[in-house]
């Protein structure tokens, strides 16, 4: 097996057995990026000097991720490296600091290969709204990798890094993981610090990882999770030894299948794969039952009102004053005109649309009808999950209603694109952890199974996901390219 085909656990084993050096591994990934990424376009910025970074002053050969090459979604601030959120409004921004997640991974020896493409400011489900390039799905280069963490998912699927950081606000880790046949973990809201990650919707944004295996995700979570004084939404919930609690069978566990996720809108070929996945969970010993999450149909509109409202607030800081390109002072009459110019030139259509939707939902006369209403419906959605988790331990669903669609297919119809989040948005609104794992293929394209658990139950969630993964092996299949 080529070095770059190995997962985190396998790569570490090679280091321990002294079969290969970290420098060789980093070199192998850098040269694969050079060879393959022109076809995939997952990287916005490649750290050509990564091999030298192996000798980082704060880590050593004993560090848990020493020499492991990773990459970051381009909304994670990386000191001295470009951080653009895939937007022209931050085109030349080089943060002078590292996000907490970036610093934590550096401190345990991980080597940063570079920054990965995303939908602009993580707004999208296909990575097509990136201002710079469209990332391709390694399984079919005419198709989207999903979004917004499409760069992260494609890079992991194409073995262009061992794992990647990512963010999930309404499905942005889980859906691209499903489309690209890799593992995508969205922990509980607040599990991992958001300090230094460019915000989209503050009550929904969740930091997570996209990995080659569940076992790898467990290791990454151990390193990233925890309270951070710089992010007040991170609590003091215990960070467990996730990698030591993985299971191989599911006896005694109850898994609920929500009937509202199996309506006619779900592609029949995707449903077939998911049903087989559920049968597999049963075979492993889980007790399967049908449950109901009655407010599911309101999740997407609720999500878009809340997310857009928070977006309109979070995007207000981008005005060309403190960071990003700007018109020259001489070119404008006054400050307000400068704001208009910089924002108009700097933001893409989807960002503008969502800012306007949020501005509208929060404006005088409409805030009660839209924003307050959505917050109330969010209470119902969260209660659906709370009630369900009294009866079952986990929920299993399809991650997405379809497999990867073609580039250009949905970009001109915003509502179409929003409906891609139909199965992922509910968990985001409730703040519960979710993972998407490869469950098989439909006409050659990956299908993801989504597992959900109560808040802060990542240990159990990863344990179940691992059991499924080990017993099926779908995650071992890799895309091939004609170069």
């Amino acid at each position, binding site marked *: 097996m080529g070095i770059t085909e190995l997962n985190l656990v396998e790569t570490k084993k090679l280091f321990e057995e002294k079969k290969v050096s970290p420098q060789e591994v980093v070199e192998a990934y850098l040269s694969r990026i050079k060879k393959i990424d022109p076809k995939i376009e997952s990287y916005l910025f490649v750290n050509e000097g990564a091999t030298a970074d192996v000798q980082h002053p704060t880590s050593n050969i004993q560090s848990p991720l020493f020499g492991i090459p990773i990459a970051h979604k381009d909304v994670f601030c990386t000191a001295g490296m470009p951080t653009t959120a895939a937007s022209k409004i931050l085109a030349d921004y080089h943060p002078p600091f590292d996000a907490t997640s970036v610093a934590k991974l550096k401190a345990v020896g991980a080597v940063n290969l570079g920054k990965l493409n995303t939908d602009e400011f993580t707004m999208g489900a296909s990575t097509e709204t990136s201002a710079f390039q469209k990332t391709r799905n390694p399984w079919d280069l005419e198709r989207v990798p999903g979004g917004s963490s499409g760069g992260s998912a494609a890079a992991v699927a194409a073995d262009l890094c061992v794992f990647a950081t990512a963010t999930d606000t309404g499905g942005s880790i889980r859906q691209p993981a499903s489309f690209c046949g890799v593992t995508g973990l969205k922990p509980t809201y607040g599990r991992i610090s958001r300090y230094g990650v460019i915000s989209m919707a503050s009550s929904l944004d969740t930091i997570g990882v996209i990995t080659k295996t569940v076992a790898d995700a467990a290791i990454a979570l151990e390193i990233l999770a925890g309270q951070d004084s710089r992010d007040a939404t991170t609590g003091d919930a215990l960070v467990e030894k996730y990698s030591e609690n993985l299971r191989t069978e599911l006896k005694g566990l109850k898994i609920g299948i929500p009937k509202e996720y199996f309506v006619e809108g779900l592609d029949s070929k995707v449903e077939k794969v998911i049903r087989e996945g559920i049968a597999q969970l049963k075979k492993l010993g889980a007790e399967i039952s049908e449950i109901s999450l009655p*407010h599911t149909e309101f999740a997407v*509109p609720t999500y*878009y009102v809340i997310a857009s409202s928070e977006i309109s607030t979070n995007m207000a800081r981008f005005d060309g*004053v403190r960071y990003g390109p700007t018109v020259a002072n001489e070119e404008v009459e006054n400050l*307000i005109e400068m704001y*208009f110019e910089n924002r108009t030139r700097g933001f893409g259509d989807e960002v*503008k649309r969502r*800012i306007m939707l949020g501005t509208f939902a929060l404006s005088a006369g409409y805030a009660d009808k839209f924003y307050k209403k959505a917050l109330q419906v969010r*209470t119902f959605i969260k209660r659906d999950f709370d009630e369900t988790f009294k009866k079952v331990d986990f929920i299993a669903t399809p991650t997405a209603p379809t497999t990867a669609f073609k580039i250009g297919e949905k970009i001109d119809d915003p509502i179409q694109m929003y409906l891609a989040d139909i199965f992922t948005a509910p968990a985001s609104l409730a703040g519960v952890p979710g993972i998407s794992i490869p469950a098989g293929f439909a006409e050659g394209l990956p299908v993801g199974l989504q597992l959900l658990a109560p808040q802060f139950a990542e240990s159990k969630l990863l344990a179940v996901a691992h059991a499924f993964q080990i017993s099926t092996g779908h995650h071992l299949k890799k895309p091939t390219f004609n170069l």
Partner: protein
Amino acid sequence: MRGGKLTYHLSGRLTERFLELAEWAGKMRRMQITKDLIRHIAKLARINLTEAESKKFTKQMGAIVGFIEKLNSVDTAGIPETNQVNGMENVLREDEIENFPKMSELIACSHHPIENNQIKVKKSIG
């Protein structure tokens, strides 16, 4: 929904349900998204729109708001709002002063002229 039928790639029951509810919401109180409203919102958001963009966004926003109006079919009387989803409240700390070590690097991120560690921009009025 405005005018003719919008075709969804996601066909079937799911879409039918959305359209049913959007129609219901429309019957209750149709929200008129006009070009003037869009221009007003864009101004609040500090975004200039071209004529073509005004037209395009008016149409798209109209459809999106119609889609969102289905929330009005949910009876939420007396239901509290959820702002914070993992139960954290009033996270406090002592007001201790720390000197941020990278002041000059931070301020160097701006392209505007710098005077006394301040970013110089145009006057807000005039």
